[in-house]
């Protein structure tokens, strides 16, 4: 418990002018897939900020993505994971989806959600394959995981649509109060 302290409560109104709202989805009920389509092409990078929980009857549930409805084996991912007891790293290649990490499932403590901050770099560039970076975690007061994940989509197409699912599995729905915010960052 702190003894001495400094307290601040100033209100500032200046905005950093390179970070822009694009779209938000807040769930009022269960939903299998979240789509951001017709993504504006006027930014340099995208950032997804997510809190999510899934109906999957497990402690944790995996969230994956596809770009532009591409379901081909054009994705690869690498991760660094912390379980609270050990750290590990792994990868997969030629997958049909990219990976963001894991959020809570229905066996987790009620009201606990996982969080994600996902950066999608140079998403409009038509000369590069696209790389994402996800910082993700959830904590259940005694269990939990942290994931630091990169995924690569082997396409030079500009990204115009992002789809998020519970590992593209039927019956794995994001639950009420899950929230998905998409932002654009200018260069």
């Amino acid at each position, binding site marked *: 418990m702190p003894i001495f302290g400094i307290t601040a409560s100033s209100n500032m109104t200046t905005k950093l002018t390179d970070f822009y709202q694009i779209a938000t989805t807040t769930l009022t009920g269960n939903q299998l897939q979240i789509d951001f389509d017709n993504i504006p092409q006027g930014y340099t990078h995208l950032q997804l900020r997510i809190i999510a929980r899934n109906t999957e009857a497990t402690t944790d549930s995996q969230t994956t993505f596809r770009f532009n409805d591409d379901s081909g084996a054009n994705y690869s991912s690498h991760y660094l994971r912390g379980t609270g007891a050990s750290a590990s790293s792994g990868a997969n290649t030629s997958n049909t989806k990219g990976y963001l990490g894991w959020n809570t499932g229905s066996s987790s403590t009620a009201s606990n*959600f996982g969080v994600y901050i996902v950066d999608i770099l140079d998403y409009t560039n038509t000369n590069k394959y696209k790389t994402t970076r996800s910082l993700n975690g959830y904590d259940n007061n005694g269990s939990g995981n942290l994931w630091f994940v990169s995924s690569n989509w082997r396409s030079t197409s500009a990204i115009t649509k992002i789809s998020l699912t519970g590992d593209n599995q039927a019956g794995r729905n994001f639950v009420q109060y899950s929230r998905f915010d998409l932002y654009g960052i200018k260069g």
Partner: protein
Amino acid sequence: MAATYTPIASITLGAAAASVTFSSIPQTYTDLVCVVSAKAASTAFDLYLQFNGDTGNNYSWTALSGTGSAASSTRNSNGPAIQLDNQGSVRTGDFTANIVHIMNYSNSTTNKTVLARANSSTGVDLNVGLWRNTAAITSATLYINSFAVGSTFNLYGILGSN
């Protein structure tokens, strides 16, 4: 599209202090981001976070850490605060870089989860923390044993599109 990532408050310490509190946090944003550049005044110490003055054992955290020679993970349950670092603790010699994301802080339906990155001269950490409370966050207190003069604390608000 509207610009966001708005500065809310900024503190630069002119004297050593054990804690810094952001109070009366506006409830008009979706997420908060706290950026900390801190140094310890006396001995190295971990950086902790409490919400709304709650000092009960209502917090837990999990850390993923790297020291330069090994990676590891650890956790703590039923503690009085969220620890925001592990190997990258606040040092006396160098300023630590901490970026703390307080997700969906103003909603009153979910427990609050924090994602934090810590970088110091001794290591790097990614931490996730849980406050088992659905209350909207109106104040946030960061503390160690004693922050050194020149430590800075900046709080930003990010607002989603609806």
